[in-house]
């Protein structure tokens, strides 16, 4: 596949930016993440097929944004109570998930592909079957990847987990 930047941006850029806005919640960061997503596409263009490019860019943008969330993590010197408050203040389940990403809780234990699966299912609301089709795995494989992550989220909800 050969990527023409301007054409690809015109067709898919708005979608990528919407995705980055949703995850990052900050316009400047979202624009940078959108640009980084296209840079990644350019770097990998010769190994990619033009089929299902929308889904591919969507997942690429998701990963770029999750990596950015990680760099927002506070230094260890910051109080733990602030971290707890950040999660507690997030009312919607999907915002709690993003807060956990921000706090690095879900980075240290899970692969990039697992994080993508988590976001597609828990943030975007795709069914397990839809996620499986999107990432090219079996439903049981997706379920297996999500199980430990769900446990962490549940522990957080019940206060069992240490922040």
């Amino acid at each position, binding site marked *: 596949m050969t990527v023409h930047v301007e054409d690809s941006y015109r067709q*898919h850029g708005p979608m990528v930016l919407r995705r980055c806005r949703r995850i990052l919640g900050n316009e400047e960061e979202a624009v940078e993440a959108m640009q980084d997503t296209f*840079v990644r596409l350019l770097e990998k263009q010769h190994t990619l097929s033009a089929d299902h490019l929308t889904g591919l860019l969507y997942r690429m943008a998701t990963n770029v944004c999750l990596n950015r969330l*990680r760099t927002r993590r506070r230094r260890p010197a910051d109080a733990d109570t602030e971290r707890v408050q950040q999660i507690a203040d997030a009312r919607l389940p999907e915002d709690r998930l993003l807060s956990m990403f921000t706090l690095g809780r879900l980075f240290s234990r899970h692969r990039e592909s697992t994080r993508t699966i988590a976001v597609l299912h828990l943030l*975007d609301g*795709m*069914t397990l079957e839809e996620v499986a089709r999107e990432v090219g795995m079996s439903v049981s494989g997706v379920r297996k990847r999500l199980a430990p992550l769900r446990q962490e989220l549940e522990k957080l909800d019940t206060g069992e987990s240490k922040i």
Partner: protein
Amino acid sequence: MKPDASIPQLFMERLMVGESVEDIGSKSLSQLSPEQRDARMDTLRVSNADILEMYPPVQMRVAITERQQLRRAQRQRTLWIPASGVAVATALLALMIYWNAAMELDPREMREDEYIGLKSGDPVLRVYRRLPDGQEALGDGAVVRKGETLQLLFLTGDATSLAILSLDGADAVTLHYPPDEGDSTQVTSGERVVVPYAYVLDDAPAFERFFLFFRTDGEWVDVSTVRRILEQMTFSKQRVLQVPSGLRYQELWLRKAPDITTESNAP
């Protein structure tokens, strides 16, 4: 009718670019009425127009291209030029590292004694030299030469985060894993990972020192921090790194054979 707010955004985006409901294969999407579908797509059309007006394609093409060039430049080596005891970083273009696709590694090359001498569960760094008919594992002190291609592989052990960098005899520091400065250093314990890019040796003298920095405490290795640690080492004067608490490292030291061409041209 299903409330359209519950439709995953990706499916609406795929509709926008012309994929059919059947191709997308989403049950929730297929349950939307045509009116609901059109309303969502109208919203996306307005959003598309707004975004393309705010961030015009020509401007974004320039910005993306500049970012790509910046990433390429960051992959090139930084040369420290010691001057009066103060090292000055200079963007180096004269020495290029050629990245090749990762070699196919034969798993039989993995020695069974890899964990001997290491604390149980520590990660393991392996460096292989490409040969005409395969590859050769290199141990500490092995001799390497300009132009040889090296491939790195690591076992994560109990590490939850790690980074691999090298320091050569010209005081240049190179990041090998993760592939890019901004990438996550998170790893899954108990895995075997082949570093995506092979590494062709240039004419830097004396040595190539490979460092695997890792943590097992749930914190992660920060690439910029470990890069700074290496950049503060001067040529052959420092053998032991000063690292923060919780950060550990392993090292593989390869000796550089003299470059015969250079030697023969020496005055």
